[in-house]
């Protein structure tokens, strides 16, 4: 009986988590991949580890600390590269390592053993709470509403920022808002895939989708489908094989990406062969 309840909970959490993770990662991922912000997003992710460490140390929810850190680091990169004229990739590299260092120092100083540390680095479904799932669900709704309402505005600003400035005074507001939402998306997904792996959850699905279409809304939809396939299959495999879930999801997604790439190649190759 106890075994059944445990299984039931695992399946529900896994399924809901997979749905919300793929929706949020599909929307945010398509944006960062199209806009070539993958490295920035990786930096935000790792910098947020500093917030996790401080959260542990002062005894608040580490996700909250991570959220504050990720948003501050996203805006910090912007500030350093625009105002202080530091190269953007260097600024990212500095914040990336600085956040990790703060995280390690504070976790080390926290009295007692921190059993959840590994789950933050590599993700674990066992430590995911219903509150985490609900937070991801709310984030899904926020992202759907935000991208739904402002689709063209966001699309055109990220395609050609200079031209957008000729007609809109809101370019910076949209850039910062979107970046902050992406930072939050990343933090909430850290529970699923971990600091080290979460960036792939955002970047692999859009790259699978872009093999098949170049139309932005279709990329988003296909990313969500690919993300869901990868995360749910990853869950199942990790459950039956007894291996860590975050790593299994990323592994599964990369395999899907490779298979998709090869099939697209084969199909276009055959087309060339059969065309008169």
């Amino acid at each position, binding site marked *: 009986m106890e075994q059944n309840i445990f299984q039931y909970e695992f399946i529900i959490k896994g399924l809901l988590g997979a749905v919300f993770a793929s929706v949020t990662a599909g929307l945010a991922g398509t944006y960062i991949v*199209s*806009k*070539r912000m993958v490295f920035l997003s990786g930096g935000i992710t790792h910098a947020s580890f500093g917030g996790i460490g401080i959260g542990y140390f002062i005894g608040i929810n580490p996700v909250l600390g991570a959220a504050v850190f990720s948003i501050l680091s996203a805006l910090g990169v912007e500030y350093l590269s625009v105002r202080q004229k530091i190269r953007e990739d260097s600024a990212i590299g500095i914040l990336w390592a600085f956040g990790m260092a703060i995280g390690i120092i504070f976790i080390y100083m926290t009295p007692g053993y921190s059993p959840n540390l590994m789950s933050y680095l590599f993700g674990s479904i066992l430590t995911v709470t219903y509150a985490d799932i609900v937070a991801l669900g709310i984030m899904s709704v926020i992202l759907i509403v935000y991208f739904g*309402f*402002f*689709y*063209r*505005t966001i*699309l*055109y600003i*990220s*395609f*050609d*920022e*200079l*031209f*957008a*400035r*000729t*007609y*809109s005074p*809101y370019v910076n507001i949209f850039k910062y808002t979107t970046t902050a939402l992406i930072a939050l998306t990343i933090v909430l997904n850290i529970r699923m895939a971990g600091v080290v792996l979460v960036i792939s959850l955002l970047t692999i699905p859009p790259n699978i989708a*872009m093999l098949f279409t*170049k*139309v*932005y809304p279709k*990329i988003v939809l296909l990313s969500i489908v690919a993300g869901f396939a990868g995360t749910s299959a990853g869950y199942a495999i990790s459950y039956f094989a007894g291996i860590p879930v975050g790593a299994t999801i990323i592994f599964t997604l990369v395999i899907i990406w490779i298979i998709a790439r090869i099939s697209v190649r084969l199909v276009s190759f055959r087309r060339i062969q059969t065309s008169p």
Partner: protein
Amino acid sequence: MAACLLEMKSLSASYGTTTVLQDVDFRVYENDFIGVIGPNGGGKTTLLKIILGLVKPFRGKLFFNQDIVSSKTIGYLPQISTGDLNYPVTVKDVVLSGLMIRKGLVSRMTSPDKMRAEMVLEELGLSGLKGSSLNELSGGQLQRVLLGRAIIGNPKLLLLDEPGNFVDTNFENDFYEKLRELNKRMAILMVSHDVGTISSHIKSFACVNRSLHYHPYSEITNEQLLSYGCPIQLITHGEVPHTVLKKHE
């Protein structure tokens, strides 16, 4: 008498401590087709940016004739480098983005908007490419797409920044022919460093090198240019004749 669309009065602009434009007095009238020429760094692009509101002058004023033109009814074709050509956006979407200037923040494109985009694509000979992404286009096609984005809102004033930069020569004449047609319904201000090419298309010159000198008619005639027997890319002020040396054999 054609109506004045915009007027600059003793206008100066700078980037930091560098003055780029000084005491510029300049008017653009309906149906003008003005070539803005001058050396690199002379302030040509800044002139366009002031009209677009991207650069604020530190002295002087810019007036629009509000009955005809405002910052919302200006078409703009930037230098090619501004958009990311690998961005997942279709030709039709790029053309539609020219309508964003009239849209609010929550911007839906209506069926009339989409029909208007189809018409512009048709007019520019791009109908077959509306679903393509930009990295699949030739330089000339890309330029027509960006021209489509600039004119979809039926602007009264069209600003072109170095349109010759990425045009293939095959398409060059078509492009200027297109501009001549557009000039019937809008004034055109075209920045270029290629005087030889544009002089036969434009109606007047503005020479910009910190200050602005306006030449109310195209002083350089085709005959003059032909007499050189080679393409002319550089014109200076002063006494004629200037000497052009032959190429080394």
